[in-house]
């Protein structure tokens, strides 16, 4: 599993990458009450705002961690946004992306590096 400075995790699953937010991010956001996911087959560039999550307090954007195409979305978190708080690193995943060159993942943080990053 790899991590971004925007508190996303990425897990390679065959030729696609599963993306979600970290435990740390979910805890910081608090009770999530709304999730908006990108449309299928959307081509995204790294840094694009692709999802919105809202807690009771505030709205946050989820940025595309890499260039690629959205190939699957997790409708379960749209129906039940609380799933992101309950299991952010598992059932609460956001979307799957097709990435042309998986080697770009090497530039992202490892779990240990992410733990240092969040202090």
């Amino acid at each position, binding site marked *: 599993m790899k991590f971004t400075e925007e508190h996303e995790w990425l897990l390679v699953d065959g030729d696609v990458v599963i993306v979600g937010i970290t435990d740390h991010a979910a805890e910081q956001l*608090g*009770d999530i*009450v*709304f999730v*908006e996911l990108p449309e299928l087959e959307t081509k995204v560039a790294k840094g694009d705002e692709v999802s*919105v999550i*809202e*807690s*009771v*307090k*505030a*709205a946050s954007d989820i940025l595309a961690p890499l260039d690629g195409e959205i190939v699957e979305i997790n409708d379960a978190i749209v129906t039940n946004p609380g799933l992101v708080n309950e299991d952010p690193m598992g059932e609460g995943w956001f979307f799957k992306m097709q990435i042309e060159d998986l080697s770009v993942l090497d530039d992202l943080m490892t779990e240990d590096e992410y733990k240092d990053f969040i202090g």
Partner: protein
Amino acid sequence: MTELRQTCLHDLHVELGAKMVPFAGYAMPVQYPLGVMGEHLHTREKAGLFDVSHMGQVILRAPARALETLVPVDVQGLAVGRQRYALFTNADGGILDDLMVANRGDHLFLVVNAACKDADIAHLQAHLPGVEPVTDRALLALQGPLAEQALARLVPGVTALRFMDVATLDWDGTALWISRSGYTGEDGFEISLPEARAEAFARALLAMGEVAPIGLGARDSLRLEAGLCLYGHDIDTTTSPVEAGLSWAIQKSRRANGGFPGADRILQELTQGPARKRVGLRPEGRAPMREGTPLFASETATDPVGTITSGGFGPSLQAPIAMGYLPADLATPDTLIWAELRGKRLPARVCTLPFRPSSYRT
């Protein structure tokens, strides 16, 4: 950056695991480990304890009629032992701040917003004699259906109070200035007490099973569900009391002769109606509509007709809710309005306030 002030309960908040944030120049607890949703629901079901010591407390030893020159509210008719909601207005009929005024017998006692307190005190001192800012007392709020039961264990006399009554009651040799009021739509109390005794008092309440500490996050969602205005957001110097739907705070005795700042505009709006009104909005989808979201009369209209001034998710309603201003002709319940959110027009319906009935002990 100037250093944040701390209330006398700061160490207690930290000990309780609060996340502290800057608010009106103070470090304040925005939430405790229970979280905004849990704290909100706890207050609606049991009793929540809020530290609101950042708010301004002022003793006013001036005649009631003198204060009436600054507020469109009947202060002379306020009986001893009673409290009333009030507004400082400006010459244009805008709102400088909203506040509570209590008649404590030989003086009036004012509670004003934290962000406005320095300006309010200067405003009072510029126009009135006998302005005494209270700087050595904390202010706590205990809110919720079990607030009376909890507080009565320490201060049995509170059971005799009804909504908007005020009294001085003893707790363990300390004089508590208590009002039966709050900012949540629930029954509850606000308690002013010497800073030196505040932590012991708060700990005595928190030791009770039904009492949990509540942060500013839930305070905001609770007041929003109750349809209550937040100064600087839903009301400010650009909104008049009539536009804001606060005409009920302008009693009959003040409607005939004016004599308060902005009376020309305010009295005219009272008789002829305001051009725009504060309304409640229920988004039809699940997406919260936050402060600043522009409102449109149709899905395709180019010019906005209003703006959301407070909005978020109502934990007790399990739905997004918002308040904002709309032209009077659109400010009727069930009118469909369009909010522009992230480049998309989403529908919301105008509704009456509050979103959730209040449960004051009148």
